[in-house]
C-alpha cells in the first residue's frame, strides 16, 4: 500500500527511517585522506598555470646561468682580440651575432670548427652571450642573498618586537617608522657612493666580489628589513594571542618551545612568500644601481651594467640594450608572478 504513494499524500516511506546498517555508518564516517598543509598548498600551486610556468622559467634560468659557464668556451672577461705578445686584433670588437673575428675566420678556413658568438661581442671583444649569462648569475645571486639578509634581520627584529611587546615593541617600531619614511632611492645612492669609497677590501676574499656589491648588501640590510620586520611582528603579535599558545603556556612550555612549535610553523608560509617577493625587488634595485654605475665593479657584468654599457652604441647595437632589459623583465616578472601564486596557495587567511 505504501508503494502506491499518491503525489500529495502525507504518507511517509518507512524505509527511509530504518536504522542505518553498519556498512552505511562506516561509509558516512569515513573521512577523506588526511593531507598536510604543505601538500594542500602545493596542489593549489600546481593548479595555478601562471605560477607553474613562472616557476619553471625561474628554474630554467637559474640552472642555465649556473651550468652554461661550465662548458662555454669563452669567459666573461676574456677580450678575444688581445693575445699575449701580439698586437690587439680589433676585428673582434663589436662583432654582430654569429660573425667571427679575423683569426677565427682563418681557423674556419682551415677546417676547424669555431664556437659561434650567439649575441656577437661587445666593444672590448668579449663574448656577449656569456656576459649576459654571467650578468644574470650576478643579478640572481644579489637578489637571493639580499633577500636572505633582509629575511634574517627582519625575522630577528620582528620576532623580538612581536614577542616582547610593550616598550621594546614601541621602541623598535618607531625606528622602523623612521627608516620607512626615508626616501629609499636617495639613501641607497648616497650610501652606495660613500661606502664604495670608504670600504677597503684589498687583500680579503671580499675583494673579488667588489666593494659595490658589498655596499649594496649593506644598503639592503640597513633599509629593506623594515617591511619584513613589520610583517613578522604583526604575525607574531596575532599568533601570540591564539589560544593554542596560551594552552602551551598553561602546560608550562618555555618560550623557545612556543616559538619553535607554534609561532614559527604558523608564520613560515608568510615568511617564504614575502621573501620570494623580495627577490625581484632586490634584483630590480641592483640593476638600477648598476645602471647608474654604482653596482658591480668592472669587468664583472650584471644585467644593469650591461644595459648601461649598451647605451654607448645604442643606435648601431640596439639589441645589446634589449637583451639584458628583456632578461631583467623576464626574471622580475616571473618571480613576482610566482610569489603571487605562492601567496594564493599558501596564505592561511584564504583557505581557512
Amino acid at each position, binding site marked *: 500500500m505504501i508503494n502506491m504513494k499518491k503525489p500529495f499524500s502525507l504518507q511517509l516511506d518507512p524505509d527511509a527511517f530504518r536504522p542505518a546498517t553498519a556498512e552505511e555508518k562506516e561509509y558516512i564516517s569515513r573521512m577523506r585522506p588526511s593531507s*598536510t598543509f604543505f601538500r594542500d598548498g602545493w596542489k593549489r600551486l600546481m593548479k595555478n598555470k601562471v605560477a607553474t610556468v613562472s616557476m619553471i622559467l625561474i628554474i630554467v634560468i637559474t640552472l642555465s646561468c649556473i651550468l652554461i659557464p661550465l662548458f662555454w668556451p669563452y669567459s666573461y672577461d676574456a677580450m678575444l682580440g688581445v693575445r699575449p705578445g701580439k698586437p690587439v686584433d680589433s676585428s673582434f670588437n663589436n662583432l654582430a651575432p654569429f660573425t667571427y673575428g679575423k683569426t677565427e675566420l682563418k681557423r674556419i678556413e682551415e677546417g676547424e670548427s669555431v664556437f659561434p658568438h650567439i649575441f656577437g661581442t661587445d666593444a672590448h671583444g668579449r663574448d656577449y652571450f656569456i656576459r649576459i649569462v654571467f650578468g644574470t648569475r650576478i643579478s640572481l645571486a644579489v637578489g637571493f642573498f639580499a633577500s636572505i639578509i633582509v629575511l634574517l634581520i627582519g625575522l630577528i627584529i620582528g620576532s623580538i618586537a612581536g614577542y616582547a611587546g610593550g616598550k621594546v615593541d614601541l621602541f623598535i617600531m618607531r625606528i622602523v617608522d623612521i627608516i620607512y619614511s626615508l626616501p629609499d632611492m636617495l639613501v641607497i645612492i648616497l650610501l652606495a657612493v660613500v661606502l664604495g669609497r670608504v670600504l677597503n677590501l684589498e687583500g680579503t676574499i671580499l675583494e673579488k666580489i667588489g666593494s659595490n656589491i658589498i655596499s649594496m648588501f649593506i644598503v639592503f640590510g640597513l633599509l629593506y628589513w623594515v617591511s619584513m620586520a613589520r610583517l613578522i611582528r604583526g604575525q607574531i603579535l596575532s599568533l601570540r594571542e*591564539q589560544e593554542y599558545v596560551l594552552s602551551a603556556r598553561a602546560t608550562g612550555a618555555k618560550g623557545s618551545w612556543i616559538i619553535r612549535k607554534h609561532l614559527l610553523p604558523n608564520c613560515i608560509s608568510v615568511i617564504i612568500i614575502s621573501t620570494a617577493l623580495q627577490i625581484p625587488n632586490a634584483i630590480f634595485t641592483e640593476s638600477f644601481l648598476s645602471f647608474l654605475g654604482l653596482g658591480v665593479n668592472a669587468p664583472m657584468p650584471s644585467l644593469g651594467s650591461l644595459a648601461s654599457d649598451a647605451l654607448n652604441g645604442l643606435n648601431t647595437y640596439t639589441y645589446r640594450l634589449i637583451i639584458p632589459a628583456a632578461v631583467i623583465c623576464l626574471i622580475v616578472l616571473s618571480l613576482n608572478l610566482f610569489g603571487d601564486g605562492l601567496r594564493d596557495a599558501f596564505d592561511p587567511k584564504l583557505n581557512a
Partner: protein
Amino acid sequence: MSENKNDILLDVRGLKQYFPINTGFLKTRPLKAVDDVSFTIRRGETLGLVGESGCGKTTVGRTILHLYQPTAGEIRYDGQLIESKQSIREFRKKATMVFQDPYSSLNPRMTVSDIVAEPLDVHELCRTKQEREERVLELLGYVGLNSEHASRYAHEFSGGQRQRIGIARALAVNPEFIVCDEPVSALDVSIQAQVINMFDDLQDRLGLTYLFIAHDLLVVRHISDRIAVMYLGKLVELADADEIYRHPLHPYSRSLLSAVPLPDPKKARANKRIVLSGDIPSPLNAPSGCPFRTRCRYATEQCAQSMPELKDEGAGHLVACHRLKEIGD
C-alpha cells in the same frame, strides 16, 4: 560532602586582575577585569561560574592558572600557596584548562596526536615513543575519538570533535583540577549536551574537580554542585546549584534566572520576566559602589556609596547586596 578543611582543593582570596590600558602616549589606566574575588572549590566538586560576556570569567580562570600574573590576591592549591616559580611549575601538572574557542585553541600545523601529547612532551612524561603513542590513544579513547583521528590535522574536525581534542589535551598530565572555560558555548545545542555529559562521566571516572565557566545558567545547572554569579569583575552571589535556582537572592541572578526558558508552559506564563535595561558598563569606568546599580531596580543612594560585602545569608548562600531585606521575595 563534609565541610572538612582538608577537602578544600582550591582557595582563592581577594583575587584582582587589572590590565593596563593605553589611553594615550605612554599613559595607561587599569581595567579592572577581576576585582577582589574570593571563593573555594572542594575536592571532587564542580563550581559553576556564570555571568554576561565580558564580566571577567575567562580572566578569573586564566589568572588562577597563572597565565596572567595576578595583580593582587592569593591562590592556594591543596593548602599550598601558588606563587614561586617552582610551585607554579608543579601546579601546572595538576591543573589544566579547556579553552573557550575550539577553533583557535588547536594549532593548525600540528596533528591531533601531537596536540594531545604536547603536555607529555613539555613535562617529558613519556620515556619511549611507544609509551607516548599508547597514552595518546588512551586519552583519545576517554573523549570518544580513536586512532584513526590521531594523525589528522585539527581543521579536519567539527567543533564538537575539536573540543574533545582540547579535553583530551587537558587530561594528558593526569590533572586533578580543570578550568573549563565555556567549553560548550561555541557548540551547537545538540552537541552541548553530549559534551557536558562527557565532562560529567570523566569527573566520575577520574575524580576530577572543575571550575566550569558558562555564560548562561542553563548550561551549568546540570553539572555544577555550586554556582557563582559574576558581574563586572565581582562575585555577586554564590550558593548551591539548587538553592540558586529555587531562591536566587541577588537582583542580577534573579534577572538571569527569569530569562531561562521553563519547560512547563503554565509556570512559564506565571514567571514574570525581568528584563534588564541598558548594557553592561565598561569595566574601564565601572560605577562606584555596587557594580550592578546602573541596571538595578532597587538601587538607592547607599548602593552608589559603598560596595556591598559578600555575606552569608544562611546555609552557605553568599550574596552581595545592601537591600536584601527590602527586596524580599
